[in-house]
């Protein structure tokens, strides 16, 4: 099926470095450092990544971090809760901007 997103592209992610290897190296070094165990565990970081993947709506990241979360020992209940966190922030962020709408509307109308 023709689609803008191709699952077989995910494992080829590193190919993005072909035209700009130095920039790609900087990115992947940073990326790997971000996900290494620090104050947060690798498992917790993967749950955050899964939530963010839903917020930015990236199907590649959703696939990849669903796998990673399972491999790191997270379960579906935790993963679902993480997505609710992303959803709450997305929804909340829209709503809180409603105050801007209200301020502007207030100014423009009687």
């Amino acid at each position, binding site marked *: 099926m023709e689609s803008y997103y191709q699952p077989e592209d995910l494992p080829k992610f590193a190919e993005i470095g072909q035209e700009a290897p130095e920039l790609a190296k900087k990115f992947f070094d940073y990326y790997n450092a971000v996900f290494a165990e620090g104050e947060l565990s690798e498992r917790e970081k993967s749950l955050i990544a899964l939530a963010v993947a839903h917020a930015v709506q990236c199907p590649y990241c959703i696939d990849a971090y669903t796998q990673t979360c399972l*491999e790191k*020992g997270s379960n*579906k209940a935790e993963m679902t809760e993480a997505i609710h966190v992303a959803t709450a922030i997305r929804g909340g962020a829209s709503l809180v901007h409603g105050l801007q709408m209200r301020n502007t509307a207030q100014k423009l109308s009687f």
Partner: protein
Amino acid sequence: MTSKLPQMVEPFSQSLKSRGLSLTRLKSTVLQINVGLLCNLACRHCHLEAGPARQEIMSADTVSQVVELSKRFSFGVIDVTGGAPEMNPHILDLLGGLSGRGARVMLRSNLTAMDGPGREQLIDLCLDKKVVIVASFPALNETQAESQRGKGIFLKSIEVLQRLNGLGYGKTGSGLELNLVSNPAGAFIPNNQSQLEDRFRQILMNKWGIEFNQLFSFANVPLGRFKKWLVASGNYVSYMEKLAHSQNPCALDGVMCRSLISVGWDGYLYDCDFNQAIGLGLGGQQIHISELEELPVPGLEIAVSDHCYACTAGSGFT
């Protein structure tokens, strides 16, 4: 019957050859005994398709041959597995006969089979002989654990762990070792065993007051019931690819079959429990325990098949 690989994954034997590697035996220091396929559970990842309806169990005769074997040669570790070993009527004779000659005797348990009438004697014997208990405990989450092992097993497993702790198992300084094994509930490969162990330790202690010595996390082997599920769920090809892509040449050096001899419930010998699941005999031969005069010599080629990808992926399978 050997498993048929999808074309995109090179057969394991060929992948060894193409890298100039081979898998050969070292000194046999571990004796593994499968006392039968009878089990009270029918877990979805079981490579032996053990379950309540299976009739295959080790007879009293074979049990004494195994005990004899353990006396003739000195093994460092003796690993008793099944099915549910607790359900073999000769289990007390076997464990009693194996203990006391310096080997570390281990009993694999699904925990729930250790519960119920008639098991007190077994637990007493384990306490007395300091048998190491290696317990399957797939997940900290009830739904996840039960999707693999069946309804109601989670809390029962917790209860048995608490009882074992109460008897001293898993407690520092008791000399009674309690190890947990967590197999993933699905088509993914566990990674970072030590982080998983920390988490299990913390949650089991905080929620249930449970202690244990070590946690092992192994990839599921694509055989038996697990293979059927992989095929039916459309995960087989990608799982095999994942295993093949996570090959770790260091894991190859440490795979258990190099130093292990595995006795099937009927007394036939294998390089490991997984070869046993597909009837692939020791070094590719059909040898019965009654015919074994010497332990397999170091250097002898190990019979391999495609499921060996599971033992050599990531940090390996010990």
